[in-house]
């Protein structure tokens, strides 16, 4: 099973999702992130989904859950790079992902984490 790598740069954890996500991969990512947050005390998480073509309700819920878990570790999560087609589909599904912040790209995501807004 493929694992999504987590990079630590300064006080931020970076996750870039490049593959077609299977349920087990998604659950594993959640666990790995919780481990990393606990181990590193990082202040922020950036999840880059620029390459993701499909976000269904399962993956959508995972993203919200990651947001909640991060908050427990006093870290903020920003979801970046969502594709327009994915955003429109999620909205139609009725998912607003209100538990995570969002930004157009990793750079803007970092600005948010570093207190720009």
């Amino acid at each position: 099973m493929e694992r999504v790598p987590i990079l630590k740069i300064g006080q931020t954890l970076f996750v870039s999702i490049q593959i077609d996500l299977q349920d087990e991969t998604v659950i594993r990512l959640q666990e790995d992130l919780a481990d990393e947050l606990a181990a590193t005390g990082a202040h922020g998480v950036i999840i880059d989904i620029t390459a993701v073509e499909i976000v269904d309700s399962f993956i959508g819920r995972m993203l919200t859950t990651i947001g909640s878990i991060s908050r427990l570790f006093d870290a903020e999560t920003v979801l970046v790079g969502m594709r327009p087609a994915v955003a429109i589909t999620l909205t139609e599904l009725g998912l607003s992902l209100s538990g995570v912040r969002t930004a157009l790209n990793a750079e803007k995501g970092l600005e948010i984490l570093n207190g720009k807004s």
Partner: protein
Amino acid sequence: MDVDGRNERMAAYLRDSHDKVVGRWTDLVVAGVRGRTSREEVRRELEDLYALIVRVLSGADEHAAGELTATLDELSRSRARDGFSPTETAVGVFSLKDAVYELVADAADLVPEFYSLSRMVDDLGLRTFEAYSSAREQIIADQSAAMLELSTPVVRLWDGVIAVPLVGTLDSARTQLVMEKLLDTLVATGADHAVIDITGVPTVDTEVAQHLLKTVSAARLLGAECTISGIRPQVAQTIVSLGIEFGDIATKASLADALALALRQAGLKVVPL
């Protein structure tokens, strides 16, 4: 269905009298065409139809019926494109009956055969009407789509601020287009604020409000904040009386107010020179 072989007999007759009948049919159709198509072209089209009609009548070929309707549909479409009315096209088809009748008028023993042919030609003529109708509907649908596209601009007001001035009713088709254009523009310009102006939307009911909420929701997934501007007094009253909640979405009376808010949120201030 050829109960007593009458269709086969008619098919044989039509084959034998091919030149005479097609020639006469062409004369009749050319008279109605009034120069909009050349005689050679009319003759060619009618030859094709004639051959298919004979094949269908003779009953030997099961593919003939399908080919006949396809050819007739194509003929109707091309006549419509060339500006012929559906009546003109249908009359052209019906005139085959006249062409055949002139030759069998004195042969009393061909009455049932002629009647059968006549019924068949009637059906073909009616079919041209249907083909014309669906071709027009397609044109209308295409034009509606083009109009929808034209009436949904997305403009850049300032660095990081884009505006979507909506004019006309906001139905689900429009909403889909607005969402697509808005989100594509957010990505292209890197904007993080969108102002959706509804001054030009005549009525805001629960359905329209849902569409607006959907649009804002989608924009937020791309990290953009939204303001809805252009709330007219009557619209405000309707919204409240319907119990519609815009929640945490900022709303302003005018586009100008919304721009001022967006600039403020971006940490910008407008000062005199």
